[in-house]
């Protein structure tokens, strides 16, 4: 069996004697910089690279008194879950929480797989300084834990302006609107198109969860979105072009392995990068390069469509308390190199929030109820967590 951890912190004691996260054991991924720790982002292209400084979220974990346990194994650049052990430290009780880079739903699917809760916070809420991913405009620091309460404590400690990431929201998020006193009065929106083509078992679990919530008084509204398929398309085009352009940083020249024998710089680049990247990442980069260099107009269209989708999703969410979307709770067991399509397959329903930047909460399966995702309005993270807590009680068989 593959070990969960890549690196164990020899000195996990909290850096400060108290704090809101005092004693909370948090596992990280090598896609999130911790000064002095191996930070290869799961890629041979970064083999031997050690971060020079902490990511802002790591600094804040330390300041809040968290105990950093170490690094879990990750997929290459945190993209997809093949080869990733995300969620396992929490599932096995080796950590109370994990930070998981989320570019297309990795944190949410990993949470469901581990039977835990996972929050992909609103874009612009948590500093991205120190993250090593592939899709800058979609990568977010996902939070994974066994309860919404822990997620809430993590969010409170990690969110907020950072002078070193100017893409963040300057103002604190608006005060959350009060929640209905219990599940009665909560309205969830369901996009029927999201169920098209879903594996039967998953669709079944999702319907069971909705039925369970409905019996507890949750109103479920159908909100058709004929353009739903475009989320995956936009994710693939915009995401791969961003990856192709910015993965130049991972040159496998200043770090990583440099194959011998190249006659000149170009050959060195080609052989080093050719040897370093895995099949899936290579396919993703090649796809991006195709759109960047051969179909740039399609990329520009995808960016325009993305802006339209962001507005459409925000409008849908404004009509309800949250959108409910299906969520797979398993990924194919094979953890060796997987082709791009197979790597992306589990993320059909998680890409919506990755494209829009809205907060999304993964709720684990409970009994007959399948795992599901709640997607809230941007910056409505606190309310979404509170909503999740209320609904979790229902799914687990409470009132």
């Amino acid at each position, binding site marked *: 069996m593959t070990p969960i951890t890549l690196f164990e912190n020899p000195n996990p004691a909290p850096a400060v004697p108290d704090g809101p996260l005092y004693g909370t054991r948090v596992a990280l991924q090598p896609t999130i910089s911790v000064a002095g720790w191996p930070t290869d982002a799961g890629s041979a292209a970064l083999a031997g690279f050690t971060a020079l400084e902490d990511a802002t979220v790591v600094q804040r974990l330390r300041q809040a008194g968290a105990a950093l346990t170490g690094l879990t194994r990750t997929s290459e650049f945190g993209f997809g879950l093949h080869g990733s052990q995300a969620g396992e430290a929490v599932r096995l009780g080796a950590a109370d929480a994990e930070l998981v880079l989320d570019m297309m739903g990795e944190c949410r699917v990993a949470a469901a797989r581990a039977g835990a809760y996972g929050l992909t916070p609103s874009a612009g809420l948590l500093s991205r300084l120190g993250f090593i991913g592939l899709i800058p405009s979609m990568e977010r620091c996902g939070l994974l834990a066994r309860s919404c309460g822990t997620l809430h404590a993590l969010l409170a400690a990690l969110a907020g302006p950072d002078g070193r990431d100017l893409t963040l929201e300057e103002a604190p998020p608006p005060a959350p609107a009060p929640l209905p006193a219990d599940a009665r009065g909560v309205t969830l929106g369901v996009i029927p198109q999201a169920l098209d083509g879903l594996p039967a078992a998953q669709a079944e679990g999702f319907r069971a969860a909705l039925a369970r919530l409905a019996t507890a008084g949750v109103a479920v509204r159908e909100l058709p979105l004929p353009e739903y398929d475009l989320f995956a398309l936009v994710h693939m085009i915009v995401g791969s072009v961003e990856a192709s352009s910015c993965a130049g940083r991972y*040159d496998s020249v200043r770090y990583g392995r440099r194959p011998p024998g190249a006659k000149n710089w170009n050959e060195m680049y080609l052989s080093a990068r050719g040897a370093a990247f895995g099949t899936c990442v290579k396919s993703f980069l090649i796809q991006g390069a195709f759109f960047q260099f051969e179909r740039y107009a399609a990329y520009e269209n995808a960016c325009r469509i993305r802006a339209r989708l962001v507005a459409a999703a925000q409008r849908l969410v404004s009509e309800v308390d949250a959108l409910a979307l299906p969520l797979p709770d398993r990924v194919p067991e094979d953890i060796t190199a997987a082709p791009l399509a197979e790597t992306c397959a589990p993320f059909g329903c998680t890409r919506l929030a990755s494209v829009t930047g809205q907060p999304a909460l993964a709720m684990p399966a409970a009994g007959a109820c399948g795992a599901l995702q709640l997607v809230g309005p941007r910056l409505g993270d606190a309310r979404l967590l509170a909503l999740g807590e209320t609904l979790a009680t229902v799914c687990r068989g409470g009132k």
Partner: protein
Amino acid sequence: MDFEAVIGLEIHVELNCATKLFCDCPNRPGDEPNANTCPTCLWLPGAAPCLSQAALEKAALLCLGLGSELQPLSAFDQKVYYYPDLPKGYQLSQAHLPLSRGGGITITNERGEARALRIHHIHMEEDVAKLVHELEGRQPISLVDFNRAGAPLVEIVTEPDFRTPHEAMEFLKALRTQVRYVGASECSMENGTMRVDANISVRPRGSSQMNTKVEVKNMNSVRHVGDAIAFEIARQSAAVQAGEAVVLHTRLWDPDKKATLPMRAKFEGPCVPDPSVPAIALTPAWIETLRARLPEMPAAKAERLVKEHGVSAEDAAFLSADTDVAAYFEALTAHGVSAKMALHWIATQVLPAVRERGQELSASPVTPARLAGLLTLLARDEINANAAREVLVALFQSEASAETIVSARGFRQISDTGALDALIDQVLAAQPAALADVRNGVGKATGFLIGQVMQASQGKANPKRIKELLAKRL
């Protein structure tokens, strides 16, 4: 066939900001290699660029100084290329939404006509690292110095309005003056703070078609830009004449061979918007606040100097080419020195003296007030021009006023008729031959006699008075 050239320039100007464009590292490329670096400008994984407010202001000021219109929204893109001077594989540059559009400079062409040369746009970008190629024993090695990596640059892209090397050179000189005026950069091509690429194509004169262009790089003086363009026009004209096609490529100017030579084919892909640097939104109020910081620009200053001081357009252009010179001139005239005398002394005495001593005019010990003291004595005929030049040297060496130096060293000239007549008597008696020459109409004998009188007075006589008195006597 008669050809004309179509030329456009791309000018990189390195802003003289204290820090780099996206981090707080000192913007001092000349320091010990790799001394001024951090994870951001080493472009290490995980680094996040933070746009420098100071660089944005300086770049915007430069745009305003060139009459270019600041755009309400601009943004950075990733310009992808793979080369060891850019290990992260892309340069942050404003490809789609530049900081400003439009603007231009009016120059005078070879025929004395005014030519308005337009700027297409101005954008910001980060500089790349510097490669140093050396030998380690017999093994050639390349070293990378990141001190320059991430330094703040602006690129000024012109319209293809230029037709001759002269126009390009005049534009660059005027541009340099204006950028220095706003204090954004020294614009030294020799030191690499201004770098110029020229895009050149040729077409039959009178045609309006745009032909395939060739880019020429690596000129390190304004003169070289002119030479490289002239070479390239001749080369392309000959090629077209011979029926060869001009292909799109980049050439390097070789100053030793005085020729352009082809270089590596350029790989350039479309730029992708960078998601890590937020778009720049400029409000009208911010732009107006900045505009208020804009100094009087050279063209306006020259016009005012002509109007207020009656200097010629050419002299006004000379004075306004450097703010320090113009300020010195205006300070002198404010002390009552005539514009003509001020101009003459600045151009022929003060500037050469300052340059010789390696000083800055604005920091010279010979302040406008001290020089005005000297020039007032000269204007009042209390000293002569020779003495004035010696007093100027003394002004550089001591803190004494011109008045004090003149008195102490006996420079005051003799204008008294009695004293001068006595000297003239003495000289005429001693030089009968010269006296005869003068009477016989040998013109230069008069000058000789004046010189003799000057000598007899040990240089203190007023030469104008001598001439008058001599004329009466002869």
